[in-house]
């Protein structure tokens, strides 16, 4: 499979503190990769460096074989989208207006919204089941609805890769499951490469083809989901021992703390 994102020896530090050191990894096209690790491991920073939101101190990131530096922000946005962990304060845009802003990289200052833009937005809202909220103000939505709208806006960008920062954190089990289903469908049906930071290890193991674990700014695990359960990989990553059992109905591993 072709390489989508190639991260080579990335380092990032703030005020002399190493947030990321010598991080290297590859994401192949069409893959669903989860990034796990304890708080403060550098997961969010890694995602932001990959999205060119934060500058790296050394090393390089290649997107579709071209270095990140060779992309303008707009050109990159056509290929790669990013869903942040939660946006702060915002003006009360309607959901439709907000999702339409996802088309920014395809528009120039005075171009009108084309039928292509409209179709991209409609399909993004259909996939994320947010069509019925079109005219609602974004600040009136529940946490789960909002997360879907943020994914819809990223999807409307029409990019082939999507980076997500803890998309299911703070959501109830039903909403978590809905978001996970949406991401799975985006990955399988729309063939979008997905890199998702998550604390939901159980779901990461079930859904992703590959899991990457960060700890203290370094990659400490990079392999197939099943391998994460082997030896005491999890204890090494999280400093706490885990048990796992197989669920009776689907024969899936279920983790719990010892």
């Amino acid at each position, binding site marked *: 499979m072709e390489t989508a994102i190639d991260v080579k020896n990335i380092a990032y530090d703030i005020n002399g503190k190493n947030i990321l050191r010598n991080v290297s990894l590859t994401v192949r096209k069409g893959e669903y990769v989860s990034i796990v690790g304890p708080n403060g491991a550098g997961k969010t920073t890694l995602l932001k460096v990959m999205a060119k939101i934060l500058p790296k101190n050394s090393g390089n990131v290649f997107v579709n074989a071209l270095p990140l530096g060779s992309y303008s922000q707009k050109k990159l946005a056509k290929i790669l989208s990013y869903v942040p962990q939660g*946006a702060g304060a915002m003006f009360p845009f309607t959901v439709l207006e907000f999702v339409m802003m996802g088309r920014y990289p395809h528009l120039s*200052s005075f171009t009108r919204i084309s039928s292509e833009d409209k179709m991209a937005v409609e399909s993004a809202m259909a996939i994320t089941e947010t069509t019925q909220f079109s005219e609602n103000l974004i600040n009136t939505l529940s946490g789960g609805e909002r997360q879907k709208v943020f994914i819809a806006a990223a999807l409307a960008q029409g990019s082939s890769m999507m980076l997500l920062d803890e998309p299911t954190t703070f959501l109830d089990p039903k909403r978590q499951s809905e978001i996970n289903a949406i991401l799975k469908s985006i990955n399988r049906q729309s063939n979008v490469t997905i890199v998702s930071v998550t604390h939901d290890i159980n779901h990461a193991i079930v859904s992703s083809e590959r899991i990457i674990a960060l700890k203290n700014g370094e990659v400490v695990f990079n392999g197939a989901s099943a391998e994460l359960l082997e030896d005491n990989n999890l204890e090494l990553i999280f400093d706490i021992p885990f048990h796992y059992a197989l669920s009776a109905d689907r024969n899936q591993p279920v983790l719990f703390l010892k």
Partner: protein
Amino acid sequence: MTKTAKFILFFSVLVLLTLGTLLVAPFIGMTKVTVAMLVDPSYEGIEKDIFWRIRIPRTLVSFVAGCGLALSGMAFQAMFRNPLATPFTLGVSAGASLGAAMYVRLGIIFSVAGASGISIFAFMGALLSVALLYGLTTVSRNFSTATMLLAGVAISFFFSSVILFTQYISDHTQSYRIVRWLMGGFEVSGFDSLFNMLPFVVTGGAILLYMTKELNLITTGDEIAISRGVDIKKVKNVIFFATSMMVGGVVAISGPIGFVGMMSPHICRLIIGPNHQHLTPATLLFGGVFLTVCDTIARSVIAPAEIPVGVVTALIGGPFFVWLLLSGVLNKGIFYDS
């Protein structure tokens, strides 16, 4: 009603109000001027001069100033993602006032290319505070918006103190002139004032009208804006530049006039929503109409004396704004925290 229909309706009303205000305001005042006097070529009275050389330029100057102040308030609110961020609250007007106060205290008189010394000093003061604010955003990328706001408020307080000090060490006449200038107004506005101000406001306004999509994305936060493809550093630089041009150009002529910049974008946002493609043209006209109406009131209610226009904007605008905030219309909120 769809949002676009709402905008078209609101904007049409604003266009009518603009035309109405600009046509009616010059006829209002202590000296009665009639259309008959103006169209009669043989009429030799002072009314013609009052109309063409005093009231017309003054009406236009107050309109253009209102446009500039309202637009710069809108841009600052978007950029700082805060309803209280305006050039007035963040010290840009205070910087301009300090420049003017220094000029009066120094007692020198000069002019460059038609621009008076006090204008030049005020403009330099505005630029100084924008440079300080702007410098802080570029020096440290770790500055949060809240930190920036605090820095702006600190700049504002600092400049205000220096103004008070300047006033304290001035004599009675100078002190009065400083106080009068600080109140803001258009008493001495002729066509030269208009031509001094117009290029600044037109350039700054055109830049903002060109950047409505970027303004929208900036209000959603830096991370989302960048990931949608906005070159955030460049865009913020351009907005700072456009805003300082407008504030410098306006404040240099009229003194610091508060409230127009904060209130106009809020009222428009409450009526037609936060989409800057609609909000920018609406705010522009609203600010112009509002300030022209306030200035007409300021110069006519106790004629031949005048109330400083800044007093009128706050007296009319303040209670109206509070009423808007309290009324049910505003339950949808100006801004929300997640």
